[in-house]
């Protein structure tokens, strides 16, 4: 059953990866990167639930969420300053 969740996540990751590689503009690529990172976060949580133990696997997710937020905000500042 957890394998089904991982398969669904892979399909979603393919969609975000498509937008990351072939976004017409820079904000499209940022959208793809942000969504890809949230897919990775959900995947880590599913994998932790599959192994049945919390521990350090769950704590990795906190770092990933922070990195995603800082990356999106920094790229937004970059777009706001430079354009395109």
């Amino acid at each position: 059953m957890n394998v089904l969740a991982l398969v669904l996540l892979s399909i979603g990751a393919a969609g975000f990866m498509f937008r990351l590689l072939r976004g017409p503009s820079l904000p499209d690529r940022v959208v793809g990167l942000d969504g890809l990172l949230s897919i990775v976060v959900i995947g880590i949580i599913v994998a932790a639930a599959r192994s049945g133990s919390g521990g350090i696997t769950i704590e990795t997710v906190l770092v990933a969420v922070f990195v995603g937020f800082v990356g999106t905000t920094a790229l937004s500042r970059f777009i706001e300053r430079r354009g395109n």
Partner: protein
Amino acid sequence: MDTFAEILLVAGSALAMIGGIGVVRFDDLFSRMHAAAKAPTLGLILVAIGAAIEIGTVLAATTLVLVVILQLLTSPVGAHALSRASRRQMTIDLDDVDQLTADEQSASDS
């Protein structure tokens, strides 16, 4: 209870997949942002509830609550910053009437 947790895990993953499909199929930056910002957030909440039930320790549940709160706080802020920056800096082809530009023009006229 275990079946309930697995249903939550699959439902959350399906929501994240719907976000990915929407990002491919919408043909407008702001529509894509709408699909990419909201659906995976709800998916993360469902998956976190399911994983907290399945793991069952207090430490894991606390960490997952922290993750959900953090995502709920940061996801709208990031989406807003990105949409504001792209709206100000770039010309984006919209698929409908641009009401914001009309409003700004009527405000500067009066």
